[in-house]
């Protein structure tokens, strides 16, 4: 029988509290309630990343569970040099990549398709109008599914306002300048694909 949800987390969902200082919380070990607080603050971001990378709500749910379980088991490896959010994202990205390789069920578009997007009519900074907001998630997923993994990941990480370009660069193994450079192409590719979903 599962424990009540309240036992895992202490902070309400959507809390705006800042991270507990990693070095302080780890100094005397991390109590389950403190880990629950970390879950409350970051599970939404991790679930959303997994959802849009994997494209399946059930797989995203499983992945979110597995990511936080891995994090709990690896807490002694966390040195506090990165934020909790960045550390959790790193685990999530690796986990999702492993799943994608294992399942081998997604058709990945290669970077060779850049040329198609570069010549497409939709500019990267054109507004995206959505008439039916309830279909937004489905349309975003369709557009994401057509992007190379690198672009998908860049857009999802940059959309998280808690991450700097440096942190996005660290998570994607490139410089912040490279992130900025690729981001323009990623936006344009997404915009072209998104407008096709209307």
């Amino acid at each position, binding site marked *: 029988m*599962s*424990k*009540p*949800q309240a*036992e*895992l*987390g202490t902070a309400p*969902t959507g809390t705006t509290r800042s991270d507990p200082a990693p070095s302080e919380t*780890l*100094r*005397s*070990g*991390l*109590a*389950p309630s403190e*880990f629950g607080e970390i*879950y409350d603050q970051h*599970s*939404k*971001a991790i*679930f*959303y990343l997994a*959802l*849009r990378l994997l494209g399946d*709500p059930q797989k995203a*749910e499983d992945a*979110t*569970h597995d990511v*936080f*379980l891995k994090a*709990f*088991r690896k*807490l*002694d*490896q*966390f*040195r506090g040099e990165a934020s909790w959010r960045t550390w959790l994202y790193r685990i999530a990205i690796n986990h999702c990549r492993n799943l994608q390789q294992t399942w081998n069920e997604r058709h990945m578009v290669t970077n060779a398709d850049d040329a198609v997007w570069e010549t497409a009519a939709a500019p*990267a900074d054109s*507004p*995206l*109008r*959505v*008439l*039916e*907001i*309830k279909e*937004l*998630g489905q349309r*975003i997923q369709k557009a994401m599914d057509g992007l190379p993994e690198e672009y998908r990941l860049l*857009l*999802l990480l*940059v*959309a*998280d*306002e808690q991450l700097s370009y440096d942190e996005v660069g660290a998570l994607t193994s490139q410089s912040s300048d490279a992130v900025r450079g690729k981001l323009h192409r*990623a*936006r344009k590719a*997404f*915009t072209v694909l*998104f407008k096709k979903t209307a």
Partner: protein
Amino acid sequence: MKHEKLTPQEQEQLAAAMREQGAQQTSIEFTSVEDMLRHDALHTPVPPAVAARLAQSIGPLPPPARSWWRRLFGRSG
């Protein structure tokens, strides 16, 4: 004040106006891809089952150990 009954034509016009108003209320324009993704993320809740499953998985595990680097450098706690 006497309320006059709407003609079929007026009723149709009113219905069309209400449909249009409804469509406007559900439409939204995003200035960037990131804005759209933030909106989508904000309105995508984590299934409550994840927290329950996680609590069940973590329950039997021992408390998290101290970081190896803290043990190595002999920091307190």
